[in-house]
């Protein structure tokens, strides 16, 4: 059963990567083409055809990788299956860099003739109802209560790990620790991380001298992003509960594939949000009139490869991505490195604990 579960997650991941990277050029702000700020006509035929070719190539890559996964699945080589999505990301990034080098030729280096900088400055952070933050905690409580009620029926020895053949190969004796491990030691930390991230987004400022329209769009994008993150958080908690319920034998072991289903919900959710909102919300409020021209301040040099942001003058840590929908870190700020080290430390420590566990 496990290999099937693996396919159920791996194939959607591969399709999602190809589709997402193929669609990014359509979802980034029109003046940002393959991570390069273009002045003047951003809808010309050359750019249109490049975006379309990028989509076609990325889709082709994801089809090839899906077929590869299905072929390799027969031979059950799990290591190869694991590196497939990573290889795919490298390939679609190469496609991105190929088109990026062509867009650079189109760029006309206008002199920095921006004389007037107009900027709208928000008086307060965006407001997201506290309920959004509370929902995941209510869900956690709900599942913990179900667990407590069901606790007397949990077998005294239950499987906690399943081998490739689908047969359990690790067992735990029943204790509050082993029974609630997934909910308490995965569900709770994940929720804390999502809360921290949402709070950071709620406080994040728009850079690059926003006009009134782009500020309104950005704030709306951030509000939606907090809600999206909380939605994803709800799905992950549900997933932890389903996985725990299988070890408790509340759900029969043969239904193990259902733990893949909530995860599959996340990809359409992210795609739906990205397509309807666009990068920093530029697709929102199309009828909003802007009294100012966009501040087209030259900032290509602050984006290495259009992907990595480094700007000493900018005190923000969390900045909107230039190629993609979401956020990235300002690598001129030492806090960015500290945050990355903390994240990697948590991952490595939890992996070590999992490996060293008898």
């Amino acid at each position, binding site marked *: 059963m496990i290999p099937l579960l693996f396919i159920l997650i791996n194939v959607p991941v591969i399709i999602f990567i190809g589709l997402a990277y193929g669609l990014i050029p359509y979802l980034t702000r029109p003046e940002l083409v393959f991570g390069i700020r273009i002045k003047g006509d951003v809808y010309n035929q050359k750019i249109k055809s490049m975006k379309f070719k990028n989509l076609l190539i990325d889709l082709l890559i994801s089809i090839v990788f899906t077929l590869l996964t299905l072929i390799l699945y027969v031979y059950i080589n799990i290591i190869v299956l694991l590196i497939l999505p990573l290889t795919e990301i490298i390939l679609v990034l190469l496609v991105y860099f190929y088109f990026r080098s062509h867009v650079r030729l189109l760029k006309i280096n206008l002199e920095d003739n921006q*004389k007037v*900088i107009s900027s709208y400055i928000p*008086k307060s952070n965006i407001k997201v109802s506290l309920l959004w933050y509370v929902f995941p905690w209510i869900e956690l409580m709900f599942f913990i209560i179900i667990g407590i009620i069901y606790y007397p029926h949990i077998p005294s020895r239950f499987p906690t790990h399943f081998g490739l053949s689908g047969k359990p190969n690790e067992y735990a004796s029943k204790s509050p620790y082993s029974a609630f491990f997934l909910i308490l030691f995965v569900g709770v930390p994940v929720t804390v991380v999502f809360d921290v991230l949402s709070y950071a987004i709620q406080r994040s400022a728009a850079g690059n*001298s926003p006009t009134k329209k782009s500020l309104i769009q950005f*704030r709306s994008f951030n509000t939606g992003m907090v809600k999206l993150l909380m939605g994803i958080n709800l799905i992950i908690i549900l997933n932890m509960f389903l996985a725990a319920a299988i070890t408790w034998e509340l759900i029969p072991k043969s239904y193990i594939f259902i733990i893949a289903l909530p995860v599959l919900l996340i990809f359409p959710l992210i795609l739906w949000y990205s397509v309807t909102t666009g990068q920093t919300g530029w697709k929102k409020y199309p009828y*909003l*009139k802007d009294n100012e021209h966009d501040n087209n301040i030259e900032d290509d040099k602050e984006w290495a490869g259009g992907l990595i942001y480094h700007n000493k003058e900018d005190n923000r840590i969390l900045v909107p991505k230039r190629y993609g929908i979401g956020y990235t870190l300002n690598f001129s700020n030492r806090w960015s490195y500290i945050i990355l080290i903390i994240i990697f430390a948590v991952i490595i420590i939890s992996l070590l604990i999992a490996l060293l566990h008898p």
Partner: protein
Amino acid sequence: MASDGDAYGEKRKYSAKSVDIDENEAFKISVDLSSPEPIYKQIYNCIVKNIAIGMLKKGDKLPSSRELSSILGINYHTVNKAYSELENDEYIYQDRRKHVIVSGIRKEHKTMNPLWEKQIKNLILEAISSGFSVDEIKAKINDLIEEALNQEEN
């Protein structure tokens, strides 16, 4: 542009459903890099204007000078200078948590700064000597007041 008076255009339903749109949630700062007027003075004037037109009210929080300098993309020291001038003139102050807070329109100032009175008197006398009638000057002053308080004026 200003004739319809609706920044959101005709199809207001697209914007009205969301609570995150509020005209008074954001104030404008504009800096002209080619102007002979120093940039710190321009920022100073923008904030004073926002207080005068009621966009910035008593107790509103301003971004820190570091934040504002990264939003505008100008030097941190320039913003800092504008802020310290504003603080000297009691338009803003720093609270205990180092937040920059707007003092609001001061109610206690019933007498005008003598320097301003002298400047205005001199300008009136100059205008009269240049051939303007008193009525023309009064009308012009009214226009200027209206223009200064116009939110969209740049």
